[in-house]
């Protein structure tokens, strides 16, 4: 067992009287891959900030190489070899890859003039060392997210790093890019550099790490070698209770099956998708999956009237509807929960109440005047029934966690008496506890209000747990329609991977 590089002992940190960290201890050994697991708001980022010297703990000790460090500053932390790769990477899109890599070195050496030859040489060496093929003369913003991340890693390694902290590094990566990242992480580890992986994705933690520390509500609740954990136990530690993983199966009422709520026939749009047929009955949740670029998002958008110019027919309750604007789609009873709720689904700087009511103002207005009492009653009812964690609806949506924000989006559509709900990545960036709750809400909606739900997701497990049928899409066509009762999750994943 190798020696300890950095150790946090009994760290406590309060913000305005609230315990952000309460007696947290964490040991990272030289050259190990360690996972710090916890839900959003559990204190993960506070731990990072303590280790990188951004926050000073109220009490407790930090030891580096067995020596106590008093007053760790950001500069000292970097000098000691702690490097953080933030989620936004802190890179400069308008500068070349080479300059992005060289800036730290130039600044550390307090240079006043730029020697472009040495900038390129430094960059070339850093990229070669990481073994990645990126053109150092390219502008950074022309790179993919994965490429930018590799540049950020290369930059961090340039300053004699001994510990690399990666904050949610896999969030924006595709499956293949995650594999590449893991390969590189293991390469880095071989050089004796420790890696702290901060994540809430169980699969990835179990795959990559050697040891895991779980924190919940600012307290350490578990730690140990990865072999001691499995998905269920991590979930339990992260959420504090068992998450029921029972799956939902829609039961059509006995007798004749009800007529489809939503039926699309021969739906085509040049360059996006062609000849799609699908029927969803009331209460049914149908999954839709496919690689990025398969056309699945375009299907969702055309159902919501954002891709006019399709051909084919869309029927709701047997009535053909023409969905060539968002207004018409809403009027026809379609609700859409977008892929990126922050930029497409919510008005972040507005209150919860106003977000919930955004599509319902016509219903609560007497001519031009909003009926405030009615509005308040409606939103209070929604906050209660969807268990949105907030003392008041006046609070800004931006202050809520991801899971609660998603509930606000759902609440908005509940009020419109939608007949069809299209969910695009309903639980992306939502932690385990909230995920289960959101699934429950969706199922209840389907059953109680007879909604037809189309659930688009990358998460096969999520689809298997909620849907009777999963439609797989590839290059703009529905290529398979599988019954989740007869096929395993692995088989679906394998089928998805075979689409290249």
């Amino acid at each position, binding site marked *: 067992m190798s020696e300890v590089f950095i150790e946090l002992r009994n760290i406590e940190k309060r913000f305005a009287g609230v315990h952000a960290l309460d007696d947290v201890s964490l040991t990272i050994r030289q050259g190990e891959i360690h996972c710090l697991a916890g839900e959003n708001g559990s204190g993960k980022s506070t731990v990072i900030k303590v280790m990188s010297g951004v926050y000073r703990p109220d009490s407790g000790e930090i030891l580096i190489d067995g020596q106590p460090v008093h007053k760790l500053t950001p500069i000292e932390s970097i000098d000691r070899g702690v490097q953080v790769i*933030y989620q*936004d990477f*802190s*890179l*400069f*899109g*308008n*500068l070349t890859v080479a*300059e992005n890599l060289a*800036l*730290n070195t*130039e*600044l*550390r050496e307090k*240079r*006043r*003039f*730029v020697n*472009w030859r040495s900038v390129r040489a430094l960059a070339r060496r850093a990229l070669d060392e990481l073994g990645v093929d990126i053109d150092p003369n390219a*502008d950074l*913003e*022309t790179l993919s997210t994965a490429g930018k991340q590799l540049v950020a890693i290369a930059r961090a390694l340039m300053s004699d790093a001994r510990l690399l902290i990666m904050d949610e590094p896999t969030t924006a990566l595709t499956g293949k890019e995650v594999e590449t990242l893991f390969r590189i992480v293991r390469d880095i580890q071989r050089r004796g550099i420790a890696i702290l992986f901060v994540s809430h994705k169980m699969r990835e933690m179990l795959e990559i790490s050697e040891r895991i520390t779980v924190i919940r509500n600012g307290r350490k609740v578990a730690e140990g070698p990865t072999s001691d954990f499995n998905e269920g136990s991590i979930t339990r530690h992260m959420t504090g209770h068992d998450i029921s993983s029972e799956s939902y199966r829609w039961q059509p009422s006995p007798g004749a099956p009800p007529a489809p709520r939503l039926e699309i026939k021969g739906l085509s749009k040049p360059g996006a998708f062609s000849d799609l047929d699908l029927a969803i009955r009331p209460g049914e949740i149908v999954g839709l999956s496919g690689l990025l670029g398969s056309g699945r998002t375009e299907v969702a958008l055309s159902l919501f009237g954002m891709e006019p110019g399709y051909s084919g027919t869309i029927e709701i309750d047997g009535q053909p509807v023409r969905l060539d604007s968002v207004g018409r789609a809403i009027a026809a009873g379609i609700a859409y929960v977008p892929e990126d709720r922050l930029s497409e689904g919510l008005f972040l700087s507005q209150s919860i109440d106003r977000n919930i009511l955004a599509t319902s103002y016509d219903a609560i207005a007497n001519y031009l005047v909003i009926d405030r009492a009615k509005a308040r009653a409606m939103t209070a009812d929604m906050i209660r029934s969807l268990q949105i964690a907030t003392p008041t609806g006046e609070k800004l949506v931006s202050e809520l966690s991801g899971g609660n924000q998603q509930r606000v989006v759902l609440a908005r559509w509940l009020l419109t008496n939608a007949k069809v709900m299209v969910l695009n990545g309903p639980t992306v960036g939502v932690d385990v506890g909230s995920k289960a709750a959101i699934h429950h809400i969706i199922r209840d909606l389907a059953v109680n209000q007879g909604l037809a739900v189309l659930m688009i997701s990358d998460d096969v497990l999520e689809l298997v747990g909620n849907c009777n049928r999963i439609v797989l899409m590839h290059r703009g066509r529905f290529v398979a329609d599988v019954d989740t009762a007869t096929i395993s999750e692995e088989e679906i994943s394998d089928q998805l991977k075979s689409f290249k």
Partner: protein
Amino acid sequence: MVLFRRSETIIATILVLAMIAIGLVNPAFWQLDNMFSLLRSNVVIGIMALGVLMVMLSGGFDVSFPAFAVASMYLTVKGMLYFGYVGVFLPFLVSVAIGVLCGCLNGFFVYKFRMVPLIVTLGTGSMVRGFLLGVVGTSIVNIDRFPPVLIEFAKAEVFSVVKSDGTHSGLTAMVLLYFGLALLVHLVLRHTMIGRSVYALGCGAEAANRVGFNLKKTIFFIYCSAGALAGFAGILHCSMIWLANPRDFVGMDLEVIAAVVLGGASIFGGRGSVLGTMLGVFMLVMVQNSLIIMKVDTTWQLVVVGIIIVIATVATAWRDRKRQA
């Protein structure tokens, strides 16, 4: 291939095409004295544009420089008259110093209070202009009182020709000052760390801070440099036109910003170059010059400047979006 993707190449191409087109419509365009006067008109607006470029690169916006320029020149000329000073170097130094002081004001508000640069410079520009007219005076220093030493200085020419009809036309040596300053700004932006920090700041203050740039230094450097360039442009301008008018440079902000945007600088910061800006300035001055040659009413020139701003902004925004896709 890289050459074709650079904005400067595109601007230069458009410029050459426009020059050919204008020359076809009006052959007088290519005459030597028109070229000389064209270059001459580049000097003052060009020097101001260098300052605006730096502010825009950092993601800021500056509308205060015309006020700073006019304050620097008017105070300096008034001072020269009051003390009866004869000389060139010191007045230029004083004018630049006044510009730096005004620029400091901008830097202070932008850094200390994290205020939006557009609002800050709107305020400081207005303050400085009002102060100048209210406290220092509103009278124009005409040619009869204007310091002859400055007039003599600005009369210097690089070379001159005597035309067939006996009149003389020459290229003012002031273009050398402009080119010299442009080279200096280019070197600073491209080859010094403070220059690179301007680009970094234009991409994101938080990221620049995390990498270890001293943003206070960078912001003060940017606004003081812009002020200095405005002060320099001011005193040079009055020397070239032989009078100091405290109400000069009204509406100049729009023209200069148009030129910088035309030169490929992004209004969101982080992108732009000295060469591009010089081309942009040349293009704008050329268009205005041609409108005059073609006897288009001056009010219509405003319309043209407005159209140029809109087209150039759309083009750069479209370019930036395409790059990120």
